[in-house]
């Protein structure tokens, strides 16, 4: 119960911080917009197959950029202060929940903008948004944890990419397959197997995060 309370407080803190420094969120939004326009102007006409891949690549890069700052935006002494107040589980969980929300918002926005400029080929809305939802959670868990690791190192921006991209590949491959199904690019009867795979990966990653994060934060 105490952890739950802490999570709520920390979530409020995250949102408040985001609200006060509006540059971070507006920067990410502009990033999405400009990427979509770059993609659109270079492709002109986007085939459903390319649409599917490009959409997830845009989401991938936007997510890395949005989450990379999770652990570096506040200086180390203030982080020490948080850690002395709250449970490490509450800290990582509040970050993951906050980042999931942020990514969900971000991917919906990317979808709307991308659909506006490049057309909307999605045929099966339920499966597509299920993929979007599960993907946001998976991305959020992985990137939040890796950003906690890379924040400890010296060149964190590069590390963030090289540490997280190989780990994210199983998730993004499953997502692309799922949404290809939703776009009717392929016929797969085993959609639930893919969703189960995604859920299982998310579950493994979140369990590892819970076990390992307490070792990570203390300096």
């Amino acid at each position: 119960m105490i952890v739950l309370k802490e999570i709520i407080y920390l979530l409020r803190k995250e949102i408040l911080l985001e609200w006060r420094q509006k540059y971070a969120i507006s920067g990410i939004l502009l990033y999405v917009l400009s990427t979509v326009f770059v993609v659109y102007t270079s492709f002109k006409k986007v085939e459903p197959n390319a649409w599917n891949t490009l959409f997830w690549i845009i989401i991938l890069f936007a997510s890395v950029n949005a989450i990379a700052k999770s652990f570096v935006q506040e200086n180390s002494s203030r982080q020490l202060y948080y850690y002395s107040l709250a449970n490490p589980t509450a800290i990582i969980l509040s970050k993951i929940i906050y980042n999931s929300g942020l990514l969900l918002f971000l991917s919906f926005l990317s979808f709307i903008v991308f659909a506006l400029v490049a057309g909307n080929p999605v045929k099966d809305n339920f499966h597509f948004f299920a993929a979007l939802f599960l993907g946001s959670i998976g991305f959020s868990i992985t990137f939040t944890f890796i950003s906690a690791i890379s924040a400890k190192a010296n060149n964190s921006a590069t590390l963030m990419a090289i540490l997280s991209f190989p780990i994210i590949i199983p998730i993004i491959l499953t997502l692309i397959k799922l949404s290809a199904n939703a776009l009717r690019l392929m016929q797969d009867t085993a959609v639930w197997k893919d969703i189960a795979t995604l859920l299982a990966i998310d579950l493994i990653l979140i369990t590892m995060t819970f076990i390992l994060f307490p070792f990570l934060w203390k300096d």
Partner: protein
Amino acid sequence: MRKNWWKALGVVILIYTYTAGLLIPLKPGILSVNPSNLNSGEEVTLTVIGYNTFFTKTESELRAWIKLDNEHAISATKIELVNDTKAHVSFNIPSNLPTEDKVTDASLVIDNDQDGAMVLPSKLTIKKTIDVNPNAEGWTNAPITDLNRKTGFSFPFRGILYETIRNTYFHVCLWFAMIILLITSVVHSFKYLRNFRMEDDQKSMSFTMVGTLFGMLGIITGSIWAKDTWGTYWTWEEVKLNMTAIALLIYLAYFVLRSSFDDYEKRARIAAVYNIFAFAALIPLIFVIPRLTDSLHPGNGGNPAMGGEDLDNTMRMVFYPAIIGWTLVGVWISQIVFRIQRLKEKIMEF
């Protein structure tokens, strides 16, 4: 010596793997048959090319059959041996086929007392030349009896694979050894996070290093094998190949992560955390996802890897020791890497 017996054991097993794995011959088999498209009602002479066969050195006669299914087969009318690996076999193919189909495939079976029974499965096609109802006339019911068995040690003769079947002891066994080494590395990472002893971190790093090396060797041997059987060194269509490439990327990133810290304690802690996290992420990568997708690679999409005729008892006698041998040598190399690493860190402390 009493303490290091396992190193000697590892070397002995590997020498055994190399000699047995490379020297034991393949079972005799049929390499090709020409012509392979036959018509019903004709009299044909097939040129059969054998592999590792001793057609002329046999005591009994060579026998040959064309087999349609378990109930329909015909025996050869005339057999002429050219040399040990070449024979001309003549058949009188009946004028009708016992099936409804226009074209049916058939197997060639050859038997003698030196080479044992050999089968070339479904390589022959027989076309029906007359347009009447199926009729089994001329096809005899199961005349294939008293088949000989090849005695002595030999590896299975498999189409497409042929001699490359020996790569099983290198490619597959290296992968097994790699998995064992990486698991050991993760165990040491857990140990480090419990006790914070630098030794555990150094051990974990050494095991990861040798595991990655074995992974690269596994990719190289697999690549050569793929060139021989699939005709290409690398294919992006294959999920297992991509996943292993990603697994290697993860471990290369691990070394980059390590090198970005100056403080040993911090490096050890964060490397251990990443090692465990990466291994957890690796499990769906190499064990789960490849099994969900279809692929040419053995062990995928219901494609058997180690069972049936691909791994017979003779092969098992080399295969299982080879895994142990590679693992033992891997542990030995890791131990040396560990000692070097410990000395390096000792020097740095002064």
